[in-house]
């Protein structure tokens, strides 16, 4: 287990290093000029150059990269060009908000998807299975901006039940639903399809296995067979899918946060890209990458802990 962790951590760092290079290059070649973007169209060419020099964006590429990465590793993420605040504090504030939204969506949709997936498997080939499978596939096919606009129009504009623009909720659970339900629906729709499909496939496979036959022929009650023998094995692959999809969730956050004007990290990424706020953009995207790595690693460790064959072999 220790060796496995060390190996995975090492690989994660290599990946992050590669991400940082790609990210830095992409940010540099983005069209437009940093000084111009900040100062606006009416500034003179001299003013723009002066600002560029002050910000350091006119220095050689390699030098800028090493300065930036060194700073990132030390925790000095620089200051926002526009907001004149330390990038770290902005990014972590926004990350916190996004975790609330993403966590809310996951908390609701993971048990629901697994439940429906298992229900479909137990009714394999019958109508509940058909309905759940078709619904799941249809929801995967719909992109977030379509479902997002649909729920926005229906529930916020037409029916006026929930606000069109969401804020970070207070500790009141009713407020959670009020603020977070609409922006999390597009995220949940996509996750539902993937997770329920995986839960369904795993459960069907497990139901057909010899060990489930053994359990039934031991005369165990159906509920024991399902809870002890089927689900324990069938949900293992689902855990991997959830972790991969959680990473995907970050992409969805960009869309849904923009749509509902929610102050999360997704909106921050988009805004800083549009406004050429390079320190913010680079730091937040790299932060997202770190987060993604951590989630995948966590899922692998969890999978290992739950699967004795892997756990004891390591």
């Amino acid at each position, binding site marked *: 287990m220790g060796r496995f962790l060390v190996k995975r951590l090492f690989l994660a760092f290599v990946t992050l290093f590669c991400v940082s290079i790609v990210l830095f290059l992409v940010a540099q070649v983005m069209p437009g000029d940093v000084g111009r973007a900040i100062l606006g169209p009416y500034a003179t060419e001299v003013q723009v150059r002066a600002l560029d020099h002050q910000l350091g964006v006119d220095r050689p590429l390699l030098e800028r990269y090493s300065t930036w990465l060194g700073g990132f590793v030390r925790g000095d993420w620089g200051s926002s060009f526009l907001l004149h605040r330390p990038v770290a504090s902005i990014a972590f504030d926004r990350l916190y908000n996004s975790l609330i939204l993403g966590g809310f969506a996951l908390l609701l949709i993971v048990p629901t998807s697994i439940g429906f997936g298992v229900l479909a498997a137990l009714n394999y080939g019958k109508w509940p299975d058909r309905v759940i499978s078709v619904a799941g596939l249809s929801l995967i096919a719909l992109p977030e901006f379509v479902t997002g606009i649909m729920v926005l129009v229906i529930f916020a504009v037409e029916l006026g039940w929930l606000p069109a623009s969401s804020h970070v909720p207070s500790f009141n659970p009713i407020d959670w639903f009020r603020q977070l339900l609409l922006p999390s629906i597009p995220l949940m729709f996509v996750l539902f399809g993937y997770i329920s499909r995986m839960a369904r496939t795993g459960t069907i496979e497990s139901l057909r*296995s*010899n*060990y489930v*036959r*053994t*359990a*039934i*022929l*031991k*005369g*165990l*009650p159906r509920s*024991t067979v399902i809870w*002890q*023998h089927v689900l*324990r*094995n069938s949900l*293992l692959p689902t855990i991997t899918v959830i972790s991969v999809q959680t990473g995907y969730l970050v992409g969805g956050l960009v869309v849904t946060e923009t749509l509902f004007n929610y102050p999360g990290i997704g909106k921050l990424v988009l805004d800083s890209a549009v406004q050429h706020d390079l320190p913010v953009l680079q730091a937040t995207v790299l932060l997202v990458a770190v987060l993604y790595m951590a989630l995948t690693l966590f899922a692998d460790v969890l999978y290992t802990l*739950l*699967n*004795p*064959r892997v756990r*004891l072999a390591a």
Partner: protein
Amino acid sequence: MSAPHPSASPPATGALAIDHLSISYLRRDRVLPVLTDVSFHIEPGEAYGLVGESGCGKTTVAMAVMCYLPTNARIEGGHIRLRDTDLTRAGEAQLRSLRGNRMAMVYQDAGSALNPSLTIGRQIAEVYRFHGGLDTTAAMDAAAAMLETVQIADSARMLRRYPHELSGGQQQRVMFAMALATSPDLLVLDEPTTGLDTTVEAEVLDLVARLRSKFSASILFISHNLGIVTRMCERVGVLYAGRLIEEGPSREIFSTPRHPYTLGLTRCVPNRIMRKDAHRLDPIPGSLPPLGLAVQGCVYAPRCPIARARCREEDPPAFVSGERRVSRCFYHDEVSGIPRSEEALPAIGGESAGGDLLRVEHLSKRYGAGTNQVVALDDVSIELEAGEILGLVGESGSGKSTLAKCVVGLLEASGGEIDFAGRPLVRLGDWRKPELRRKLQMVFQNPDTTLNPSHTARRILTRAARLLSTAGSSADVERQVTALAAAVQLRPHHLDLKPSFLSGGLKQRVAIARAFAGAPALVLCDEPTSALDVSVQATILNLLVDLQTKERVAYLFISHDLGVVRYLADRIAVMYLGQIIEIGRAEDVFSPPHHPYTEALLSAMPTIDESEGARIKLSGTMPNPANPPTGCRFHTRCHRFLGEICREREPPWQEDGEGHRYRCHIAPADLEAAQQEAMSRPAKDGNRPEAEIRA
């Protein structure tokens, strides 16, 4: 002549009574009968064997008894009674209280039958919790006691193990522990030892025999292996195409069969005195009728050597004769007189021109590095003449397949030399000349996975002919494909079918024809018949012998079935933990003095044609090849262990000067005396077939 009897079994009320059971499968609106009017009774404490080829309905009977038929199966009629309960009418709740409690089942492949993510303790304890009403702690204690009963040592620690940490034999013991936990009335065993090594199989069968004296369960024992059924059961029923065609005491039924099918089954299997140069195997002609085919008269008539007009018109009733013998054959009195088929024996070609075709010297194969290094082959040397068959035997993990793969070039050997036709071979097949690759071919165990499922048999053979042979024009290729198909007795219409539409035997024939496309000099056969039914196996073995004599092909024939190897091989090599521990002419290897490991393998062999001998029990399982024992590798399990010398010094080769050699510290004369004595001790008749061979 005996009178027809309405029921196949005497009307007794046994532990299990199956009466006139008929079952069909519904497939796309068609009703396909799988069992037709099957009746038999099992007395309390009795072991009843059920034999027949695959597809005869053996497993359907087992599943019907456990009331676990697939959803498309329908019971058309008849009753299954467990003591006084009619299982065909039992509801779900009643079934739950019966299953695992009054009737239990153990089947093939215990590895997949145990839940991989629960400890075995928990899986055994479940039975006590649900049927015995014990709480968790008491159930665990009971599970520990049960593990001791099935002879798993150190039960407290074993309870916390997961299934994958156990050996195949231990897993099957756990299955027995679970099945016997509640001391059921009926134990259904469906091929419980298939897939296990011969030595492990013998251990498990010994365990079953021992458990029978402790528990009073009746046993329904399903197996394709007639030897095992003879050893384990008092009575045997023979199923053919869903009908019970013969029944009787196990000792008599195979020695004096009263149904041509039973006789056919016994003649497919090579017995102790059969050798390929003197005896031809008698495969049953034709094949099992497809499911759902309406048959008039006797189902076996199309394959029967003594069928007459009456057989094709009337369904034969059950004839009861003698002491509990039943046969569904009008002419059951004539069965004993059916002659063996008069097929001409192939003329064995003249003596070889001398010189070795294949010479493997000091070959080694290591996997991994450092402390994890596994030595799969350790200093292996063998030689093979042109047209010779070398049998390669040993338990799984002994390195048999690794050796074959190194020779054929699928694996790269780590050291040593392979000479082929006098020239050193490049280690990896990719780097060998096409001419050499053509001369060295391989036939694998499972034709399902070796043949491309989306190609027809013709396309597979055409490709092989084009790539491997010297045939140039497409007309030549076509002619060669036809010739290849004819050589392995494939009918022309088989050629246009894809593998999934061919039976296992036909698929293996395609695989063999493919290997022979380039007129090979050496064919490596890795368990080519172990997935096949006995009658198909007989056909394939005859075919291999024909090809050997006609084409002067040499084989390296890997098999765990010693009976087959003895029949087929000219010489035999025995492997243990990556080493050759004995090699020599087949008759020398099979008779003392031979390596104690060979002796143990031989004694583990179940047969139908001899009285029970005392079996040599090997202690423990094969050691981890990553950490092989010092001195003689076999000393940890050897029943003829001498002491320090075996533990400390590698044994020398004992050679007799005529090509037979084995590695053991015991002097040949002493070993021979001890082994002769051991062989004659248990045999009551004192006249073992080996003695006949040597006389």
